């Protein structure tokens, strides 16, 4: 983006903003505002400039503004941009963090124990956030034959029932369709309350608890005070707000807080976290948001921009006239998407950042190696990579080993750590153990790729059985490892006589291929700019919305938005990699603006 390049060298004074951008920077602070920013419009730069202006002219100390995002990486990005402009970091009374962090720290923390009855742990009243990988506080009743952990369901106001989200999709579907009577709901709620009273909560729970607090009379003054503390809240990527978060926004606005929403409803792809762009639009209309528009795309050539507009059948957007407009292409594969890789690799000789984007991890894994890794393969992968000795891979090895241990031994873990059991205080101690443990396995031959799966499994099983007795195992960890003693480790069926190296080589060597291809999910590339983006469609439609037909079936669906977000990343070249097309399909894609083989 032209403006962005300039910004790389200079401070705010040297940036020239377009009329559209300047209009927002000058927008009033005493009204709700929605800045609709199409991809590549320089949104981050504009928001940083606006925030900088607000801070420099601010005279309502000790009140301040809150700048909220949805990802820690986004927070870091904005923080460093603002720092660059202001020449000092954003400090009190202003506040920048994720939306979740804001709700937890500023809305809920001080009153949490009053709402949940949590008695604190030794005077420590901090709430521990856990996600569905934990399995604590299970219901006393059975839902579809199982007792469910309180971390794996949330109440949905829309459908007025509890929605389950465990790691078993099949069971989830069954349970979410099954009948849920009053007794069930009461039991589910009671179980949740037990979780909260013990000082735990999921992020979804935090929103709900905050809403509970906002409805109680006794906290009225407390929330009024918060409204005075943050009279202006800017929310970046507002399309990702969940229903509960929108309700929190409404309640705060009733107390006088003004909101600036910044984002693009067309880029809402967090449906799995229950954010719905239609609800966001409804809420903005209800609260009277004034719309400002940034619809000049500085990132991409016009042809790419037009294809994106066609995917959603949305308004025309102006592309960057200084970027050569190259018509987006379609590349076909016969059986497996990995067939297109050689052609893509050639492109990477000309262009710098070439990214391959796919809807899900499975497709991505297929691209890399033809099939995803599971179970015992993960353990072998971790060992082999550790033996290979590349420092950059160690973190990944530890995470893989941790994940395997957690699954195999059914440990209660927090995702951070990685996969650190909840009762172990020091994450550092856990990581050291993971490393020592893997090292132990490698020393006993588990890192050698030149053996068959059967041989490897036999050796690994014996070594793992000895693991709990090793001196490097910390006392708190020891008891968790008991399950390794009688462990049964077997090669996957039909693979027993295969060499490990056959299966596991071809794993991307990060160091060597750093300047070649990147493989990412759509969520992973949000906000990025690439030179070339290859969007990979799965072989069959209807499974997890990873086929291009799913994307085009309903222009208002999330599937369409997936395609939109992925396709709006490239500066120069957009490629869709699809399974061999039928004649009528070719027409559809041509109509969208693609050049076909």
């Amino acid at each position: 983006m032209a403006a962005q390049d300039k910004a790389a060298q200079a401070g705010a004074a040297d940036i020239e903003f377009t009329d559209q951008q300047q209009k927002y920077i000058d927008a009033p602070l005493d009204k709700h505002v929605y800045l609709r920013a199409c991809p590549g419009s320089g949104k981050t730069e504009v928001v940083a400039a606006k925030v900088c202006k607000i801070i420099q002219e601010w005279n309502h100390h000790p009140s301040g503004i809150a700048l909220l995002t949805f990802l820690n990486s986004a927070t870091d990005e904005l923080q460093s941009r603002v720092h660059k402009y202001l020449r000092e970091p954003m400090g009190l009374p202003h506040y920048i963090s994720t939306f979740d962090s804001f709700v937890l720290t500023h809305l809920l923390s001080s009153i949490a124990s009053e709402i949940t009855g949590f008695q604190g742990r030794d005077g420590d009243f901090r709430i521990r956030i856990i996600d569905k990988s934990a399995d604590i506080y299970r219901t006393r009743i059975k839902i579809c034959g199982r007792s469910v952990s309180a971390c794996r369901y949330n109440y949905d106001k829309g459908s007025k029932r509890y929605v389950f989200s465990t790691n078993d999709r099949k069971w989830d579907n069954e349970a979410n369709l099954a009948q849920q009577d009053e007794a069930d709901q009461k039991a589910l709620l009671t179980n949740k309350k037990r979780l909260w009273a013990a000082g735990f909560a999921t992020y979804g729970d935090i929103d709900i608890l905050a809403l509970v607090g906002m409805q109680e009379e006794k906290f009225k003054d407390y929330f009024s005070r918060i409204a005075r503390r943050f009279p202006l809240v800017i929310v970046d990527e507002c399309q990702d707000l969940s229903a509960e978060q929108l309700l929190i926004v409404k309640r705060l606005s009733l107390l006088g807080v003004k909101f600036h929403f910044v984002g693009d409803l067309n880029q809402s792809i967090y449906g799995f976290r229950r954010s719905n762009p239609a609800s966001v639009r409804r809420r903005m209309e209800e609260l009277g948001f004034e719309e400002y528009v940034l619809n000049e795309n500085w990132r991409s050539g016009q042809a790419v921009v037009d294809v994106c507009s066609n995917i959603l059948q949305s308004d025309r957007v102006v592309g960057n006239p200084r970027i050569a407009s190259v018509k987006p292409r379609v590349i076909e594969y016969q059986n497996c998407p990995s067939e297109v890789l050689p052609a893509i690799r050639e492109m990477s000789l000309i262009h710098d950042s070439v990214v391959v984007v796919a809807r899900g991890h499975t497709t991505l894994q297929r691209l890399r190696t033809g099939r995803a890794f599971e179970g015992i393969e993960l353990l072998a992968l971790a060992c082999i990579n550790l033996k290979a000795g590349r420092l950059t891979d160690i973190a990944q090895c530890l995470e893989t080993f941790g994940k395997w241990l957690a699954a195999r031994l059914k440990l209660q873990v927090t995702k951070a750590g990685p996969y650190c059991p909840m009762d172990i205080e020091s994450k550092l101690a856990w990581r050291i153990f993971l490393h020592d443990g893997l090292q132990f396995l490698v020393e006993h031959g588990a890192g050698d790729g030149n053996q068959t799966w059967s041989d490897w499994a036999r050796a690994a099983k014996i070594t793992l059985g000895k693991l709990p007795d090793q001196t490097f195992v910390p006392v708190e960890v020891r008891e968790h490892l008991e399950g390794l003693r009688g462990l049964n480790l077997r090669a996957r069926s039909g693979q027993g006589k295969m060499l490990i190296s056959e299966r596991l080589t071809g794993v991307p060597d990060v160091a060597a291929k750093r300047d070649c291809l990147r493989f990412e999910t759509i969520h992973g590339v949000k906000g990025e700019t690439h030179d070339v983006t290859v969007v990979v469609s799965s072989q069959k439609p209807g499974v997890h919305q990873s086929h291009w037909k799913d994307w085009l079936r309903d222009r208002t669906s999330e599937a369409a938005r997936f395609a939109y977000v992925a396709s709006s990343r490239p500066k120069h070249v957009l490629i869709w990699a699809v399974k061999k097309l039928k004649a009528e399909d070719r027409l559809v894609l041509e109509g969208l603006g693609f050049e076909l083989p």
Partner: protein
Amino acid sequence: MYLRTLDVQGFKCFGEPFSIELHDGLNVLVGENGAGKTGVVSAIRQLFNDSESGKRIISERDFHRGFGKDDVAAEEIKIQATFSGLDENDVIAFDTWCGNHAEAKLTFTALNQESRGRFKHHIYGGHEYNKAFETEKLDYVHCVYLPPLRDAETKLREGRQSRLARLLKALCRKDIEAARKARALHPLEQHVGDFNRQLSESDQFAIKAANQRIGDSLKAALGAHLSQGTMIQFSEVSFSRIVEGLRLLYFPDLSKADAAQFRALEENSLGYNNLLYIASILAELTYEADAGQGEKTYLRLLLIEEPEAHLHPQLQLRLLRHLKKAAEARGMQVIITTHSTVITAAVSVDHVIHLSNLNRPKAVPLRNCGLPTQSRQFVDRWLDATKSNLLFAKGTILVEGIAEAMVLPALAKIVLQPFGEGRNSLDDYGVSVINLGGIYFNHFMQLFCDVRAEHQGKNIPVRCSGLTDNDPPKSVIEDDGEDGQKSVPFLPHADNCIVGNNPALGLQKHIGLSEFARLFAGKYKTFEYDIAMEGNNLKTMLIVAAGLWEAQNGTVVKGLKADAKLDFAAMSSAQRAPYAGALLDRIDSDDIGKGIYAQAFADVLEANGAGFVVPVYIRQAILWACGLEEGAA
């Protein structure tokens, strides 16, 4: 907003949980040495970043350790501050310290576990620990600490971060900001820059030539490649460096003196330098408050230990009045510790907090002693520098007049004699005799006990004896033996005494129920009379009177000397009464007077008090104040 309560445990002398209640404005902490005054100030400093004396680091000695044989150091230090009186802005600024409450809390804990020379410590805001601490919030509190032994001269001296530099930077903050934004030089920088140029370019001063010489010499030594450029100038052209080079000069009074006549501070008096130092601190603090300038500050805390250091009483008074005014006018909370009776006399008891350390430290704000308004006003007016002694003593004896005040120490020597050398005077027990100048026990004793049932309050945990007279009517009506009545002087004795008219007598019973106070009243009549009625005391007392009578050769003296030869010890109480009455008349007469008599009497007792019998009520008062039991010797 102000610091209302401080709770300390495990820190320095505070083994058991200790709590002290402060109030907005001026707080004066008094108490004898070792009571915990400095401990309180140190605890407050531990919470905040002190802009004058720097951050306080926890050391091993800060963990409380009792003096018992098996006592070990405390495992944890906990210091918690509660802030009250927050207005709208304060509540927003300290939102996380308040949570859902009206008051803000800040807690500091430290564990007695040393790691790399430092002790693990933790600080959090709010009524419970429920989120990470925003250290920037501490900048909203401006805390300044002045230690007791101040080197004002060094502090006022020029140099990095000198007082002057800080004050000037604070005063010019907005201008400096504006200049920086416009990327221009501040007028002061401009001026000095020009002056520098003048100095180095003009041929009039030797500076240009000196520069040349130095430069040439360096080049010759190092060669053009390695040589550095040098320049002699007044100062670097930066606001900070310029003001750091400024020096404060003084002139002894406010008369019009030429700038050249002002002198360096090294020549100034120690006391005045101290005043200048404190004045410069106040200037910075009050400027901040007035102009709403500089860093946003919501609480100003000024901690001064012994402000009276280096100052004579009149200056102490002036300083204190100024501190009080500054505290009230500009929303500053001032906490001082003092040993000066001048200072305590100058403030209302409402501002005074008494600290003691009998078996554990205790803080008693005098405003909580249950003084009814009238008593408080009385005490405020009458608590002068001498009476203020009662705030620092280990025990007090309150008396009605100068006579008792002078004689009592001598009588005490007689009473305490059995306890041996080093324990036989009031001084040895830290007991002060306070002359109330009247029968004002009901006002002053309220500090030590609940004088009446309806005046409930806290008590200063220090023993207090009140000493008062029985004061029966001076005369009674008798039959004159002729069917008439006449008025006869009433001389009480062991078989004939009535309860007197002294209003204080009615307080005795209730005071006697308290833990620390007792009111002792004479049995018979007045101080001198009651003493005269015991044993052979009249002998000594008559001789003293004789020595003081004007007409040394007259009949009065002769009579006194003759009476002195009598054996009073053998007489009955009724027989002594008339002699005692006569003695009283002599003492009260114009020739002698109570004051003169008391002085002479005290001298005689000091010289030789053997055999002198001290009346029971006086004896009890002395033993009570000294914390001794009857027969304990």
